[in-house]
């Protein structure tokens, strides 16, 4: 009995403690002030966490007593996405949020709980965005999110390792690529970093996208997967996994494995976006200094292109209150103001779909990104932005099957087609 009593006492005490803790939030809210919750993964170690926090501080100071934006940190992007999906499926959008635009997330547009920015963007605000950005965020004539971060994803290569192997320029076609790969292997260097793991087989998916774009041109994702060019692109990707063209742990490896090999100087070629610059500069300064950018060796009739497209859009919850709506639009306009975007870009290394100029003292590799983007024959987005999440997940699984010799390139493509038809 004494045990029961002490148990109950602990329980009651604990509940008192928790209720007292529950009451701590929201006490400092001023009268008439509009509070906007902003759950985001741009926090913690993310390269945009610093600039976002300082923009937020400026904004809240500018609108003191009227609008206050509060960050809800959700560092894990998977967890963030799960939560956002659940909230939307329960009919409750967060006041402000970020999402990666793709055919899965554009389904959000089917609900009217998202704020519609079509009319706001039709005015002068629309002029701050780079060409095609607003159209890319529009479905059925409605723009229910604001375009923001974009990606440019060229091929990275380590010029020190290329020198070591006696290669003086980046290969321009597949024949040259084979020669270069052989020279690298003779020098004890693994040519490429690949991976089948993670949720989208990221770096290998990008090689595939580069090859497909070289075969299919700017409209490559409008072609059906049954088009023979995709089988050809799959053949190119398979060759990356053969004859020691990649590391042994590529099958099953994730982004850490793929990037880790490049940073350790094990592999000569890698693919990723500008957000990786900060990481490599910190962890592997020599590799950072030796890194050059290129477009993929020509596979089909097109060449000189780069992968690029929208990476994160800003969304908001629909509201019936005109004041709240104004507050949201004010915040969105502030976030996309060119001066603020430039600060964000220079400090994080990321690139944005907004017209701004980088300063001359920006990271040289980042400037290199801007250069390859402007010199590209055309920009096309990658496979993962053109297909739903389940097809993209199948990509990694079927790729492992192909790399392990269980699937031919035709069967690999067929697995994607089957998933897409489901």
């Amino acid at each position, binding site marked *: 009995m004494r045990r029961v009593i002490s148990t109950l006492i602990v329980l009651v005490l604990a509940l008192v403690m928790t209720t007292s803790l529950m009451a701590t939030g929201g006490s400092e809210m001023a009268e008439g002030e509009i509070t906007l919750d902003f759950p985001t993964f741009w926090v913690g170690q993310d390269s945009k966490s610093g600039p976002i926090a300082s923009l937020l501080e400026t904004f809240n100071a500018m609108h003191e007593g009227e609008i206050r934006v509060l960050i809800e940190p959700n560092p894990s992007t998977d967890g963030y996405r799960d939560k956002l999906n659940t909230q939307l499926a329960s009919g409750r959008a967060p006041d402000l949020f970020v999402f990666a635009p793709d055919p899965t997330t554009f389904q959000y547009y089917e609900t009217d709980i998202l704020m519609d920015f079509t009319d706001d963007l039709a005015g002068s605000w629309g002029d701050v965005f780079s060409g095609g950005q607003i159209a890319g965020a529009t479905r059925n004539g409605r723009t229910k999110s604001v375009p923001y971060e974009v990606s440019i994803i060229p091929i990275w290569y380590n010029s020190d390792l290329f020198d070591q192997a006696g290669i003086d320029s980046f290969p321009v076609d597949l024949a040259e690529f084979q020669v270069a790969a052989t020279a690298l292997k003779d020098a004890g260097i693994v040519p490429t970093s690949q991976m089948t793991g993670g949720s989208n087989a990221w770096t290998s998916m990008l090689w595939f996208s580069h090859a497909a774009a070289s075969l299919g041109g700017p409209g490559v994702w409008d072609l059906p997967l049954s088009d023979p060019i995709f089988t050809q692109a799959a053949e190119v990707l398979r060759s990356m996994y053969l004859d020691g063209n990649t590391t042994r742990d590529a*099958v099953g490896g994730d982004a850490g494995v793929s990037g880790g090999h490049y940073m350790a100087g094990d592999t000569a070629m890698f693919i990723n976006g500008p957000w990786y610059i900060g990481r490599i500069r910190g962890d592997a300064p020599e590799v950072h200094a030796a890194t050059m950018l290129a477009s993929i060796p020509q596979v089909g009739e097109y060449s000189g292109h780069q992968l690029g497209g929208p990476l994160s859009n800003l969304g908001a919850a629909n509201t019936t209150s005109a004041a709240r709506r104004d507050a949201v639009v004010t915040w969105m306009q502030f976030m996309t103001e060119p001066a603020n975007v430039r600060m964000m870009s220079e400090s994080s290394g990321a690139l944005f779909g907004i017209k701004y100029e980088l300063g001359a003292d920006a990271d040289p590799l980042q400037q290199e990104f801007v250069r390859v983007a402007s010199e590209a024959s055309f920009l096309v987005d990658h496979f993962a932005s053109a297909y739903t999440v389940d097809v993209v997940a199948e990509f990694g699984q079927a790729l492992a099957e192909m790399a392990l010799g269980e699937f031919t390139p035709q069967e690999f493509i067929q697995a994607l087609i089957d998933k897409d038809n489901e």
Partner: protein
Amino acid sequence: MIVRSGQRWLWLVLFLAPAMVLFTMYFVYPLGFVFVTSTLEWNGVSAAKFVGLQNYIDNFGSRSFQFSIRNNFIWLGSLAVVQIALAALVAMILARQPRGWRFLRTVYFLPNVISQVAIAMMWAALYNAEYGAINQFLELLGLEHLTHNWLGEIGTALPSILIQQVFYIGYFMIIIMASTMSIPESYYQAAQIDGANVLQQELYITLPMIRSILVTSMTLAAAYGLRHFEATFLLTDGGPAHRTSVLGIQLYKMTSALDYGHANAVGGTLVVLGLIVITLIRSTLGRRVAADEAKQ
């Protein structure tokens, strides 16, 4: 007497009420939600369409689902049989209080306190084909032909994750040990006088006395085998080529793709499968325990 019986009923209801209320909130309503949505084509945001059992039919026809269900049964067997057997063995050894048993008991339990993320990272590093300690060790011994890309080959991926999990016996060892240590010392003393050695004592005294907790543990382990998710999610995410996938992974992937209909059909399948398995365990092993206990 009538008053007493009325009181008994009142208490009975009062004792049951909190559990039933919570159970309704956290299981009856959500499971209703799962089963209803499993018959819909629904992406969570737009209007749902009734499709009957089509989601279940689609699932059973898909290759990844078939691999997953096979793997779930492999998990079920490995956890319910191998892990429980190992846990019981270690519990019986430690219950005899060999030197350092307190320390060992704590150490064996440690993996339960450490985050799964860290443990998975360590195993990914052990298994890695290029830098991994296992391959480096094999190369040191001149056994290069035995090295593998452990988590990336069809033949080795699933066994690698299974081994990683099956040997973390801490939780089951603790509960079996608690049961073992509550067996009265006098039973063993009597057996010792009769000339029974240690192994005989364990076989004829300990095992029968802990049979009920063993069945309980096996039932739980079987349920874990069906619900298994985290270690696989962290180590391979179901790859390579779906060979390590389990139903939990399928469910999660479908949810991420906003395919709530198929996802909840996976959930529904898991619940029904689980009911069948648990009923089987309880009606075979459980019945024998009940019969033995009645005899005593």
